[in-house]
């Protein structure tokens, strides 16, 4: 493969990841082309790109998933490469193939790798041949209920039904006992078909209290692979990650090195190119099992960037242009601790109900050790067309305690008005004893939901809301109902220092 300096990249995505890719391109002197749906006319990724083209209605199938239109724009705008981001077309081997057939570089793995690793059974086969342990499970798709019964019995309940055709928790079902198997199989098959156009499911042993630990890898076109350390992603809800951190508190340096080299072996076995993530489950006995490979930039990649100082998107662009990896494994020396909180437009107190609306006020957190990736601005409309992830807050600290304190400070500073967000939920988690002690597993959020916790220090918040309601109500009416005028005034004075909690709790 010849080295080719990339001049212009089409970013086939939207939201924070599109903006994040555009930023790195701009820093590298690479021009960018944004594509956008009718719903995103004034989106930040559109305005920050060098050029932008509308490609269709809001529904993803007609815009961000419309391969033909996207490739057509890339060619018309004289791009030489396409970056798919995450989600949308990022793990479509067809898209990768068609991009490359059009004479454009695909910033990601080869179509062949995406296809091989996207078939979860094939991926398990490839990596287990490379000597990496996989979660015990079936080696072929489930044919019917009796086949499922037979395999489940072999591994023992609980078992997990999983999609062959794709990852990310879609189509997954936990089956605790045999009588649940029939319905779970029907649901999983239906969900899998609709998510991936492939109804095949297979069965894995369900590990109890596992930790989700993944390794960031980089591979080039010359069979070089290095890893950039691990991320712990056990704070999940319905298999969707919510909080990630690096390093993991659960593993020691010996296991860390072992998992890192297992990830490199897995990547080499699939001749992996570009940035990717090898996911593992680690059980209570600290045994690790390969889960899957995500063949794209990951939402949580910033925690690795904060620790290593590398720009993973830059490395992707360099690798795509034919460079070999610039770093030797021993040159990668992560520093400190990093945490990412995903901010979703959801109401955690109402079962994580999505929240839509216009951003009425925005004040991002800033300062030392805080990085925010988002495409929010005042006036941005959060719609139900797209993913509810609206912002990522990433903290770095010299140690885990500092990374947590900074995250806490940043989440309190961050104001997003107009929609409900998971900021209170994230505050709840990072201040929870189990999280502070690093003693949590993938069941954490489920426990939270079961116990019907409220994330908010409800009494305090309600009291403050009540008082401000009274005072604003006084102001809102043209004829002030609060005579004396001292409730809404231009300033304050006052010397009392007692905390309100002391009085009202």
């Amino acid at each position, binding site marked *: 493969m010849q080295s080719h300096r990339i001049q212009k990249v089409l970013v086939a995505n939207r939201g924070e990841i599109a903006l994040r890719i555009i930023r790195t391109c701009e820093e590298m002197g690479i021009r960018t082309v944004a594509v956008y749906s009718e719903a995103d006319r004034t989106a930040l990724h559109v305005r920050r790109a060098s050029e932008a083209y509308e490609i269709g209605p809001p529904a993803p199938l007609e815009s961000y998933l419309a391969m033909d239109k996207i490739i057509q724009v890339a060619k018309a705008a004289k791009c030489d490469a396409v970056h798919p981001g995450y989600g949308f077309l990022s793990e479509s081997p067809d898209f990768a193939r068609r991009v490359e057939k059009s004479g454009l570089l695909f910033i990601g793995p080869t179509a062949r790798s995406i296809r091989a690793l996207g078939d979860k059974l094939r991926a398990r086969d490839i990596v287990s041949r490379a000597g990496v342990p996989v979660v015990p499970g079936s080696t072929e798709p489930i044919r019917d209920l009796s086949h499922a019964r037979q395999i489940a019995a072999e591994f023992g309940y609980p078992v997990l039904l999983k999609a062959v055709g794709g990852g990310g928790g879609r189509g997954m079902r936990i089956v605790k006992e045999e009588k649940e198997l029939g319905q779970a199989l029907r649901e999983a098959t239906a969900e899998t078909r609709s998510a991936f156009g492939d109804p095949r499911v297979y069965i894995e042993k369900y590990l109890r209290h596992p930790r989700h630990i993944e390794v960031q890898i980089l591979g080039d076109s010359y069979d070089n692979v290095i890893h950039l350390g691990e991320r712990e992603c056990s704070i999940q809800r319905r298999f969707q990650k919510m909080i990630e951190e690096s390093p993991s508190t659960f593993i020691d340096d010996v296991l860390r090195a072992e998992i890192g080299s297992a990830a490199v072996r897995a990547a080499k076995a699939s001749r992996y190119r570009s940035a990717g993530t090898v996911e593992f489950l680690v059980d209570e006995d600290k045994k690790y099992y390969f889960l899957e490979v995500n063949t794209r930039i990951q939402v949580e990649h910033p925690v690795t960037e904060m620790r290593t100082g590398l720009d993973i998107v830059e490395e992707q662009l360099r690798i795509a242009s034919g460079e070999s990896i610039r770093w030797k494994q021993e040159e990668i020396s992560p520093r400190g601790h990093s945490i990412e909180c995903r901010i979703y437009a959801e109401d955690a107190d109402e079962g994580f109900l999505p929240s839509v609306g216009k951003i009425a006020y925005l004040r991002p957190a800033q300062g030392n050790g805080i990085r925010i990736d988002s495409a929010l601005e005042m006036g941005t409309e959060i719609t*139900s067309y797209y993913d509810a992830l609206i912002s990522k807050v990433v903290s770095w600290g010299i140690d885990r305690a500092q990374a947590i304190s900074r995250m806490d400070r940043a989440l309190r500073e961050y104001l997003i008005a107009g929609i409900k967000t998971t900021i209170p939920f994230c*505050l709840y988690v990072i201040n929870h004893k189990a999280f502070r002690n690093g003693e949590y597993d993938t069941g954490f959020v489920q426990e939270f939901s079961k116990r019907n916790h409220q994330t908010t220090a409800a009494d305090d*918040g*309600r009291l403050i809301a009540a008082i*401000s*309601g*009274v005072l604003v109500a006084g102001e809102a009416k043209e004829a002030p109902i609060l005579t004396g005028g001292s*409730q809404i005034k231009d300033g304050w004075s006052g010397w009392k220092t007692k905390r309100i909690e002391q009085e009202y709790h």
Partner: protein
Amino acid sequence: MREFQVSVGGRVYNVRVPKEGDTLLVDGRDCKAALVRVHGNLYSLKLDSRSYDLHVRPDDGRFLVLVEGSEYEVWVEDKSRPRRPASVLRSKEHKAFEIKSPMPGLVSSLKVAPGARVSHGAPLLTLEAMKMENEIRSPRGGVVSEILVRSGQSVEKDDVLVRLRL
């Protein structure tokens, strides 16, 4: 001295505001409070000597108040004006209560029928949106007086789904 009854998330406060000075009486206790507008709907509340950033949006007779990342619905009733007819606020808050769709979506199933008595947090229906099944729960207790949607129906944000009699 003016008197207000304020309802927030199921809790009711009695707030008395003096003609002069910053000291409110909240449920009979002293509370030194002063509010200043920063910009637009952004306010700074100083409560004793602590300050809070608040975003306060008037919305359909109530206030949506953002306090430390959480949004509260606040209903304010001026008790000092008893001679006015029951206000809109009052009728909304105390007589009938409408549960609106928080987002566009598809009603996938109904969990209650008219006449059912529901408590705070009871599931009313599920709504499919953002690729997820979302349970709509009752924000307060009452009796279901009307269900305005059926299973399979598309709804827009703020469409009324269910009416409760309180």
